[in-house]
């Protein structure tokens, strides 16, 4: 019998969009494994970091950025959005599906939205399955 698929999700987040003390909202959940990568600004999500997360075994990667127009460094979240779109195409070319990567805007402290974003990613991964390059 197949072992139950417990997805591994790596969350890259800007420390202004998603504060470290909100990590605890996922504590105690056993339907996924999560790794957090804190960034001073979401503009730091370089393509190579996203790819390396998949190389390190992530089934999905979620990028959390501030709402548009509210980046402390003006355009960091716009840059992040463009890079994520670029890497999604690259994941399609690689053959592991760009749908494994997503970016969401989130207001600081909105834990309900964070839970919703992760639940959506999990729903998506339930369809996509394990990272075939892990």
């Amino acid at each position, binding site marked *: 019998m197949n072992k139950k698929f417990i997805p591994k999700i790596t969350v890259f987040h800007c420390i202004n969009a998603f504060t470290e003390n909100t990590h605890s909202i996922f504590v105690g959940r056993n339907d996924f494994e999560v790794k957090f990568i804190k960034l001073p600004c979401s503009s730091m999500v*370089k393509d190579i970091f996203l790819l390396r997360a998949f*190389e390190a075994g992530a089934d999905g990667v979620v990028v959390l950025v501030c709402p548009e127009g509210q980046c402390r460094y003006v355009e960091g979240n716009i840059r992040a959005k463009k890079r994520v779109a670029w890497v999604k195409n*690259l994941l399609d*070319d*690689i*053959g*592991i599906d760009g749908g494994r990567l997503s970016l969401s805007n989130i207001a600081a402290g909105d834990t309900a939205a964070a839970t919703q974003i992760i639940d959506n990613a999990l729903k998506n991964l339930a369809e996509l399955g394990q990272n075939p*390059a892990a």
Partner: protein
Amino acid sequence: MIVAEQKPLSEIKEIIAPYKKILILGCGTCVKTCFAGGEDEVAVLASALRLACKKDGKKIEIEELTIERQCEDEFIRESAPAVSRSEGVLSLACGAGVQALARRFARTPVLPGVNTTFIGVLEKQGVFTEECSGCGNCRLDIFGGICPVTRCAKKLLNGPCGGSQNGKCEINPETDCAWQLIIDRLKALGQMDNLRKYIPPKNWSTSLSGGPRKLVREDHMI
């Protein structure tokens, strides 16, 4: 600078298919500036290929290195130990860099990872435009510093074709009409008289028509 664009991943996968141990070699000059083959692009391509091969169940070892310039032997030398460890080198340099490597490393296949596209400039962040065709006989003095050989779709040397509309080329409305730019610039420089000069048909013998060109500087040779 030389502007190049990375080949699609599917093509690169085909090119490297016969090899199990490759070196991805970047170049830290032109192709780095146009995001095709610098250190960052080497890292991303290596990661993408590792993921793609793993997904396809293929074993491959990839080494990564970027040298300052692939078109100069002095810099190429630094890559010799890494090249000797690999079955093939995937070069992310322009075509000149690929050939310079091939010349130095007689027994290692050197493969192109980018398409070398044109001589151009960074017009604004993320946009590169072609500016010079390397014709071998530059007349930018007459044209106010704007090259009609390269930037006019019809390579006209004696004024516009007449199809220019609102300053845009009739061949592609996204592109500025080179002759509009030339006239605007000559006006600003007070050099409109340049337009009275007849420019004879271009002598292409200084261009690629006579085969590959060579530049010799005796004073720099020993």
